[in-house]
């Protein structure tokens, strides 16, 4: 049975890569071939240390790593990634149903856990899911960065007025509160909407407010 490949996502981010870490040569190669067969980019590493030395931060995708390996284990690799603030989703592969370990890994932020033996379809589904999650994350991050740049361009007064507007105040109330004329407030209002590249307060709330939560 072949896996139905989801329709490619709109290209809004750089291409994703599946990073495969496993010390078993046949297994490593087979995962890479499987991923290539569904047109996914795969890169293989023989150990956690190998991945740590060669991974370039900011590269998107997901990580598929064996838990038990000579040298550093998959869990130790996960810890390292948390410390390095690498947000790549992680799929840990284990040979046994090791529930306490799975709980620990999940708590530390592992995206998924897959137990051998698994079918190729299962692996591909988990990988696709992790990639979608990573792309969403990267899109959000980029939007955040964009919004932040716009916010940085506001003056302190404009920022002050924006906060009061988003809290539901009208021009007159804000003028009274800040001892400014209604006209001046209106002027600032137009300017800040323009700087934030939005047409209305509703739109402004949509890009600014989720970040503040």
């Amino acid at each position, binding site marked *: 049975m*072949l896996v139905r490949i989801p329709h490619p996502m709109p290209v809004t981010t750089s291409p994703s890569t599946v990073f495969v870490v496993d*010390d*078993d*040569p*046949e*297994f490593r*190669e*087979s*995962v890479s*071939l*499987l991923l*290539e*067969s*569904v047109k996914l980019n795969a890169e293989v590493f023989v150990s956690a240390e190998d991945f740590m030395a060669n991974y370039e931060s900011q590269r998107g995708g997901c990580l598929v790593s064996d838990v038990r390996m*000579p040298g550093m284990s998959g869990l130790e690799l996960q810890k390292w990634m948390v410390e390095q603030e690498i947000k790549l989703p992680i799929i840990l592969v284990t*040979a*046994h149903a090791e529930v306490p370990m799975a709980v620990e890994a999940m708590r530390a932020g592992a995206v998924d856990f897959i137990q*051998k*033996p*698994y*079918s*190729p*379809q299962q*692996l591909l589904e988990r990988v696709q899911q992790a990639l979608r999650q990573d792309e969403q994350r990267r899109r959000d991050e980029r939007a955040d960065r964009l919004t932040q740049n716009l916010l940085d361009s506001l003056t302190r007064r404009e920022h002050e007025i924006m906060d009061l507007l988003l809290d539901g105040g009208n021009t007159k109330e804000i003028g009274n509160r800040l001892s400014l004329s209604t006209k001046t407030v209106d002027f600032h209002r137009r300017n800040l909407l323009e700087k934030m590249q939005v047409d209305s307060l509703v739109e402004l709330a949509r890009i600014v407010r989720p970040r503040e939560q």
Partner: protein
Amino acid sequence: MSDGDSFHVLLVEDSPLDAMLVTKLLGSVRSPRFRIQHAEQLRDAVHLLSQHEFDVVLLDLMMSDCNGLEGLERLATDAPDLPIIVLTGVTDEQVALEALRSGAEDYLIKDEAISDSLLVRSIRYGVERKRAELEIRRLNTELEERVARRTAQLRASEERYRNVVEGQTELIVRWLPDGTHTFVNDAYCRYFEKTREELIGKSLFPWMSSDEEREALQSRIASLSVDNPVARGEHKDVGPDGETRWQRWTERGIFDERGILLELQSVGQDITEQKQTEGALRRAERLASIGTMAAGIAHEINNPIAAALNAAEAAMRFKDDPDAKHLLERCLDNVVRSAHRCRLIVENVLKFSRQEPTERSLVAINTVVRDARVSALPHAERETATIELQLAEDLPEVWINELEIEQVLTNLIDNASRSADGPIQVTVRTSRTKHGVRISVEDDGPGMTVEQRQRAFDPFYSTRQKQGGTGLGLSIAHGIVQGHGGKIEIAGEAGQGTVVTVDLPINADDGKME
């Protein structure tokens, strides 16, 4: 008392004249000397007897204060151990006999004929006779006491023996070599549900449960000898509830001085419960080891199976893409390699679980070592290892299965060759031991940790799982060496290389090595 040369005499005499006569008579004697105390009346005599010790009493039968015979009886009662010699003036045979019957030692007549020598002889003999009599009486009493004591001891011992034989659960039986019961205890009767009358004089062979049981017992009896009179064995029969039950028996043969078996004594114990527990334990152990093995196989086979599935799945996607030909080839190659790994694991498991007795012959161990080196060489060269042989020349041939031992040595050399990534030196030595030969395989690799050393012989324990190590090589080697009555040991610390020694006896059947 008298020391043999001096007698202390109590003279009981109411006639002063007679008393003087006797005193004079005895006083004139030089040897032995007589010391005389004189009592005129019987009651004086009784008093003196209670005050002093005397060797002899001379008693006049014609006393004024009593009848002579009564006086004699009185003195004989008061001093039963003292010889009494009766003196009288009367020549009356009847009185003399009465006196002797009443306990007098001797009887003398006071007349002109009484001489010092007669009196002395009579006293001396009287004293001696009395002393001998007393000694005999004392010995008799002692003998009686001893007999009574021994009898009591015997009775206690017999009681103890009876308690031992009857009072416990051991089955005890004595029987003749033809099987006839001569003695059975209560426990034996109860166990076999028969009365003593039904057993004694009847043979035990006809009601043994099978011919095999009977033959086993008969061959055990045949093995008994004067020098080796005890044999042990287990027997089974069918109990009253129809269930098979087991006993452990100890047979002791009783032989005559010509070494002919006269009788047998057997002590038995019911061990049915123990047998059942042992059986259950063995089953549980077997199940546990099957479980361990199954888990091990599952774990080992997981990786290559997953790899083969992944590669096959990928191959199905690549097969219609003309540009992906080399990718398709890589997939198929991966499937083949992974499947081979599975096959290797299964093969080793089968080898491990097979326990057929193997054929053996007398073999020069150095030849086997050389063959093993040739088998291991291709691997060793790939691993950049060099194998050096240091073989002793004076080795005895050993009784082994050549192929099995070669497999063991090849495995050890392989392990040594792969113990490090870089170049490695492997040295194989042979030497003579007290009971056989020793082969040691030494490497200058990284060595083993304590945990690795302890687990090295466990099935499925491997430090090279991902490189295709099945964790069965050393388990199999251990099994083979043990099957040859030998032993295999690992020495060496982490960081100091490893030495594995295999000791083989010349012939495993001549006794296992400790």
